[in-house]
């Protein structure tokens, strides 16, 4: 088989995979949207209070009744759902009540910072877990291995906010070399230098909180890979252990790692919610908490849909990456 044929077939496979996944994603997002809307519609929360705010007490009954009609709150749940979905499809995400801005503006302003945080956090997590995982597997059973495994399992049990509190204890109180809150120093413009310094702690905490599963995974799949024939073969040819490990075993172990990374996106988002809150990072994940505390349904719903789409996309990207990287995998959807 020539390389060109392989390439063309690979392209077709990726195309099929993407089309199939997108086909699945659309109904999934639709179902999530419906479910979230129904949850809200059946909740004890009455949007009329949000509309009037404190003014609901001074507003007359007639004004309230009028607003109910205007907002269509007395229509059936399904026609309200239809109207809301129609708005979503036409790009109108509604008005955020807690930020007093259109939802799209809130998302537009805050999403980039979350993407930055999550990306850097992911990079940190990948680097740490590769280094620690490889070291642990290399000296399997040694003290490094035991240390890494023990620390991994302990971190597994600690929510990211505990790590964040620890980081604050160190950097706000004991050793103030890094800023512990915000995107920039107060009042400063978001320059590269400013943002970078403020990014360090949140990103490292987010990254480290994701590490345990990745480290343990890298370690165990490396150990598995060490059993494989081509590795044994490499050993038999007398190649140095370092070369065997990094050139032969690691690549085999890395492929499932990519899949795992893709599947961990929901956890990364979850971690971002906590980390952004503790570090006052002005991202979209912290906005989830603000929105929840003031029952800002339009924003909550939009963010739920956004993350759902992001997670589906992440899984898809991981699968495509595996396809691209590994000639042996065939795309079965």
């Amino acid at each position, binding site marked *: 088989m020539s390389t060109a044929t392989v390439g063309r077939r690979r392209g077709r496979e990726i195309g099929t995979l993407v089309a199939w996944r997108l086909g699945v994603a659309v109904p999934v997002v639709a179902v999530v949207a419906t479910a979230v809307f129904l949850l809200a519609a059946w909740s004890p929360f009455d949007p009329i209070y949000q509309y009037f705010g404190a003014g609901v007490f001074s507003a007359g009954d007639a004004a309230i009744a009028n607003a109910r009609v205007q907002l269509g709150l007395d229509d059936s749940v399904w026609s309200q759902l239809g109207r809301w979905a129609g708005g979503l499809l036409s790009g109108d995400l509604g008005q955020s009540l807690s930020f007093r801005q259109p939802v799209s503006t809130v998302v537009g302003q805050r999403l980039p910072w979350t993407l930055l945080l999550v990306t850097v956090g992911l990079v940190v997590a990948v680097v740490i877990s590769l280094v620690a995982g490889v070291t642990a597997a290399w000296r399997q059973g040694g003290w490094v291995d035991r240390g890494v495994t023990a620390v991994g399992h302990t971190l597994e*049990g600690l929510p990211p906010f505990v790590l964040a509190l620890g980081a604050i204890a160190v950097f706000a109180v004991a050793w103030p070399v890094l800023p512990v809150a915000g995107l920039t120093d107060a009042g400063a413009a978001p320059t590269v230098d400013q943002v970078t310094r403020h990014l360090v702690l949140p990103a490292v905490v987010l990254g480290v909180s994701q590490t345990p599963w990745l480290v343990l995974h890298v370690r165990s799949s490396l150990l598995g890979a060490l059993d*494989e*024939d081509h590795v044994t073969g490499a050993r038999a040819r007398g190649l140095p252990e370092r070369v065997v490990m990094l050139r032969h075993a690691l690549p085999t172990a890395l492929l*499932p790692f990519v*899949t795992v990374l893709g599947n961990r996106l929901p956890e990364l988002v979850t971690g971002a919610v906590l980390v952004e809150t503790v570090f006052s990072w002005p991202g979209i994940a912290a906005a989830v908490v603000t929105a*929840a505390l003031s029952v800002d349904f339009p924003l909550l719903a939009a963010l739920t849909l956004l*993350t759902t789409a992001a997670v589906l996309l992440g899984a898809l990207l991981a699968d495509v990456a595996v396809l691209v990287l590994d000639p*042996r995998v065939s795309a079965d959807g």
Partner: protein
Amino acid sequence: MAELDLRRPVVRAEEPWRPAGRRRPGTLRARATWTGRGRLVAGLVALGLLVAGAVLIPWLGGLDQGAVDYAAVRQPPSLAHPFGTDAVGRDLFLRAFAGLGVSLTVAASCAVISTVIGTLYGAVSGLLGGWPDRLLMRAVDGVNAVPHLLLGIVIVALYRGSVLAVIASIGLTHWTTVARVVRSEVLSLRSRPFVDAAISGGASRRRVLGRHLLPAVVPPAVLSSVLILPHAVWHETALSFLGLGLPPHLASLGNILAEGRQAVLLGSWWIVVFPSVLLAATTLAVAGVAAWWRDRSRPRRRSELAL
């Protein structure tokens, strides 16, 4: 983020290359089995101790959830208060264990809900097979695509101030792992000779279900519900930490830790450290059980777990 690692990712790619049963002598496998069993025992013992502590310590110590002590605000650990006291002078030793109890109770309720939903869902999916099975499993993907904490936050935000909402928000989002385990168990049972034999022997569908499938499905379902525990505890603490969980005056690990931000700035390290240790200990104990479970199930059901 105690995501259950039941679906230990399996290397689809490596299967064709691996000759069955070939291992490097004296490596991972033998050791893992031994440590697995060791960790199971250690995990169960630790879990038992923690549960006993959560039940007995607040009771023996005569914990009064509502009482504050103006004379003992933010005191460091001492003989009278082994874990110190919090911002309104409550003893953290009692409160942290009571909090563990509350968190575990909430988590256990969630685990039960998840297990019931997951078992039914998985069993139905596995028994139906074919396209309904595929459809149901895609739906599971859909649920998994929404980050659990986010969905939990939405539920709790809309039904504020209700403990039931907290339980529901966790229970309704964590059944998918159980569903997958049960489904694979059912699938593998369906293809076993004794089931075929029972069916060809004229046993009714219900009898096969009741006598052969159900008993086989229950143990893994129960186990996976135990494995959900730390994740549920984790979720409760995260929600409470964000101010969206249990009411702040109720002792729970999350509520105690929510005070931690202030405590850290004021140097009251004990308010963060002790509850965190309890939290980590719970997860580690259950992780012991989980490790044993993975080792036990790995050789037999490896491919089925890789859904």
